[in-house]
């Protein structure tokens, strides 16, 4: 899909009246992908509750705008490094729902042949290495991918997703600093969902926004409404352009909220009901749907049709996963070293 050149300033990006004219296909893709992520996660949750998935899950419900907004701004050749909460990033990058679902079931047809599990989904064919479950561990690697682009004189970029908690890891600081001094083509995408597991933001930070740290490293940084997919897209687009130009990394803090617990064993008693209701009202999918229906003159029927196709895709994914064989026990010994 060809990108249209966007000539937007930061200011313009903030105002609703100056929406870029993304082609309809793209907008529909964005909507459908957000719904796909939402429905995938809800389905996975149901399966987990029914005891049909062997492991716990870290669900992306409520944060869909970040993954989709970023992914709308990048190409297949660009790399994505994800975290322990990777399903949304993976679906948005182009890893198939079937492959991810089969991986959750621990089947041989899974994205990692059943050897990775929920926290490590990825697919190198779409330039997404296995997600890294060590908080902050993915940031230096993302910087390395960006370094390769520079050394190879190619214009692909590297996107690193991480949460607010990761910005306190040593690895994060080392990597951001290196990316800064070497002007690496790196997007540092912070999904600030206000909690690191159960630890609220203000318990771990003296500052108010993670984006403030960008100044300490001499790179541009911004804090945006992470539940506004268009804003995420516009910010990402700018950052990508900067990176491809050789102007170095950008820190994009997306303020968002995970509507469910940290993992499936999280009763969320550290958050108030009011807070959860507040954020539910700012649900990214509802907002985008509203935007499309009112501002972009897209037919409700089209969106419904997309909803239906998502249900189909997920249903197939579940059936595929359940029908797939388990890995041969002997597979435990393979794929450690490349011969």
């Amino acid at each position, binding site marked *: 899909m060809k990108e249209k050149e966007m000539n937007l300033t930061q200011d313009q990006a903030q105002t609703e009246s100056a929406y870029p004219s993304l082609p309809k296909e793209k907008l529909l893709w964005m909507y459908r992908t957000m719904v796909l992520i939402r429905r995938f996660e809800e389905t996975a949750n149901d399966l987990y509750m029914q005891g049909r998935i062997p492991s716990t899950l870290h669900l992306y419900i409520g944060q869909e705008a970040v993954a989709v907004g970023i992914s709308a701004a990048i190409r297949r050749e660009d*790399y994505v*490094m994800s975290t322990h909460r990777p399903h949304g990033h993976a679906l948005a990058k182009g890893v198939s729902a079937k492959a991810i679902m089969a991986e959750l079931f621990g089947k041989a047809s*899974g*994205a*990692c*042949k*059943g*050897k*990775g599990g929920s926290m*490590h989904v*990825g*697919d*190198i*064919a779409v330039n997404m*290495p*296995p997600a*890294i479950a*060590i908080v902050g*561990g993915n*940031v*230096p*690697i*993302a*910087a*390395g*991918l*960006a*370094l*390769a*682009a520079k*050394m*190879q004189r190619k214009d692909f970029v*590297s996107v690193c997703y991480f949460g607010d908690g990761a910005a306190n890891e*040593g*690895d994060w600081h*080392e*990597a951001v*600093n*290196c990316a800064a*001094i070497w002007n690496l083509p790196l997007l540092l995408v912070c999904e600030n969902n206000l909690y690191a597991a159960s630890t609220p933001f203000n318990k771990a930070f003296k500052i108010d926004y993670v984006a403030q740290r960008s100044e300490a490293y001499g790179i541009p940084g911004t804090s945006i409404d992470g539940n506004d997919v268009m804003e995420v897209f516009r910010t990402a687009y700018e950052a990508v352009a900067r990176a491809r130009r050789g102007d170095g990394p950008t820190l994009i803090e997306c303020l968002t909220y995970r509507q469910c617990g940290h993992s499936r064993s999280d009763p969320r008693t550290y958050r108030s009901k009011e807070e959860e209701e507040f954020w539910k009202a700012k649900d990214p999918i509802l907002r985008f749907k509203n935007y499309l229906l009112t501002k972009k003159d897209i037919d409700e029927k089209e969106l419904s049709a997309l909803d239906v196709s998502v249900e189909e895709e997920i249903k197939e994914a579940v059936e595929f996963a359940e029908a797939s064989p388990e890995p041969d026990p002997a597979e435990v010994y*393979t*794929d*450690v*070293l*490349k011969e």
Partner: protein
Amino acid sequence: MAKMTIAEALRQAIREEMQRDERVFCLGEDIGIPGGFGGAFTVTLGLSEEFGHERILDTPISEAAIAGIAIGAAIAGMRPIADVQYGDFLFNMMDQLANEAAKLRYMSGGTLSVPLVMRAPVGATARGAQHAQSLEAFFTHVPGLKVVCPATAYDAKGLLKSAVRDDNPVLVFEHKLLYGSKGARTEKGTLSIVGDVPEDDYTVPIGKGVIRREGKDVTIVANLLMLYRALSAAETLAQQGIEAEVIDPRTLLPLDEELIFNSIKKTGRLVIVEEDNLTNGWGAEVAARMADKAFFWLDAPIKRVAAPDVPPPFAPVLERNYVPNEEKIIQAVLSIV
């Protein structure tokens, strides 16, 4: 054929690989700074002039980033040779090496690989506990890594080349007292290990040890500096009529079990000499494997000669009592013949 120190041989290996393959580059602290030392032990001296500062990339003091960036670059098609200035700093990048580099291929179901090299100088040299440790054992325990330890100039060039060409993460342990570094970076107490190094493009295979001295009464397995102490001990033992077979394993992971096993079949006795502390050292693994595989060929218990279970001390008299010496090796052999 040229006469080279180990430092020179390593430098030559890096140079040849970088000439051969444009994807190869180095990253580490103080490795390319103009007017600098070419790394703490002069291995990269002069290379930044030849290849530029992008391919001899100086980093901030950020070990985790050095490792992680090397991993990322490797995934995207580069072939990085990263290094820590002192082996002890490997602990700073432990997560990246053990949780990421070692596991990524497996977690990906075999669809990607991480072809990186991490070089690390080890060995006690009167600098104190945090610049002295031998850490091979921490990495021989990690599936997904390879661990090599060249003790001669010939092996240094050949093994480093093999490591660069290997598609897996390879740790290359070098001994501070074996480099033969010169000038301002001369190491006190260094052994002058100058060897014949062929000028052509050769490699030493990873996973294959070598018999440095043949014998029939006891097998001694020793790496890096301990290899030379073992050879010295062997000469002294020979005067007492005991002929030791000394094996340089060269690779610790994967271990050349066949070589050691065949030697034990001949001698019936095994002594392992390592510079790290005794408990759970790499020698413990060799002992366990041979106690299993070679049990019915053993005429005596397996002995390990290692540093005591203490951090490396500073004062020279203490350090001499820490690092295994010839006498301790001889005592171990005599206790089982």
